């Protein structure tokens, strides 16, 4: 098991996964950061969180998405970033499954506001899509021990220059 995880090819596969996953999260956070008041309504629409926490969630989560997305793309502390993404994906999937079970006909709110409900309605396909991203984050967390990226380059530079 440990030998299969130590395979050097994982770093390159993980790089592709990281770039994709990081890009997804950077794209997802944009409208939420620009329009937190709209995203707060999206969060409230799920009727999942208590009212007092809706705005805090709507403010903080997009920045977590932005920072973790950037960390994955750049190759900085990728395992910590993938751990956070994993946690967010689990949370999103629970809320999504709950909304689907309640029969709510609404937008995912993942990449656009509820105004785009007809473009991105929630469905079991949304849940499947999220589970793919969850698996990807678990993969990065499990195998990417020496991520290709800025952090590795800095490490090499430090070794060379004492």
């Amino acid at each position, binding site marked *: 098991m440990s030998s299969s995880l130590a395979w050097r090819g994982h770093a390159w596969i993980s790089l592709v996964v990281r770039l994709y996953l990081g890009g997804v999260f950077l794209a997802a956070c944009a409208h939420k950061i620009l329009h937190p008041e709209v995203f707060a309504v999206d969060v409230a629409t799920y009727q999942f969180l208590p009212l*007092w926490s809706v705005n805090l969630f709507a403010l903080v989560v997009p920045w977590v998405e932005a920072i973790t997305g950037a960390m994955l793309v750049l190759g900085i502390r990728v*395992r910590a970033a993938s751990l956070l993404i994993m946690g967010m994906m689990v949370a999103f999937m629970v809320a999504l499954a709950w909304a689907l079970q309640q029969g709510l006909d609404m937008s995912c709110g993942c990449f656009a506001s509820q105004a785009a409900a007809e473009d991105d309605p929630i469905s079991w396909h949304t849940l499947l899509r999220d589970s793919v991203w969850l698996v990807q984050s678990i993969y990065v967390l499990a195998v990417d021990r020496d991520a290709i990226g800025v952090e590795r380059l800095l490490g090499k530079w430090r070794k060379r220059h004492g």
Partner: protein
Amino acid sequence: MSELKQTTPVQPSARATVVGIVRDAAIVMVVSTAVALTVNAVRSEGIRLVQQEQYDILVPCPEPVGDPEGMKADDARVKDSKSLLLDVRTKEEFATWRMEGARNQPFDWLGPPVDDEVKTVARQVAASRAQRVIVYGDGDDPDSGKEWAKLLSGARIKNVFYVEGGAPALNPSLPKPEGLPPLEEPDEPSEPSEPGAPGDEAGGGSADSGKEAP
């Protein structure tokens, strides 16, 4: 030997690795929170950190004016416990007969704008956590139930339905709506009608006239 010890890279233990990952993740969370709160404080249109009032939405509509869906009176969803029933007939009509569990929200065509009432009902709907809202009215043309359902949809509530035919469709023993008289009478010179001629009320034309809406 001592040189060898110094040059061999020290592999961190699994526990230390996990602790390191969790610590880094916690730092990212703290930084993200700090950035989020700072940006929100700086923004002129920043939002309140703790929301006090309920967001008056169940599921928002993309359009400012909603387009509720019609529903047959015998639809099983009408009697579903997850449906919120709104009876928009007058209080007197509501007192005479109502669907079990229905709330009365009288709709007065000639009354003042009902924006505040719609918002109040929208909040109640959101708080009720019902899966859908079913409105029924007098079943006339225009149907007060359908009109109220439109208003409710326009207030960013989705999953709003109206019962086609209104209360008389739900309870056939209720009197059918009479409707308004036709706006234009035929402008033909009056001729004495012959007994049994087409159009003569005695000839049975009233059944059809009842179906036609003004």
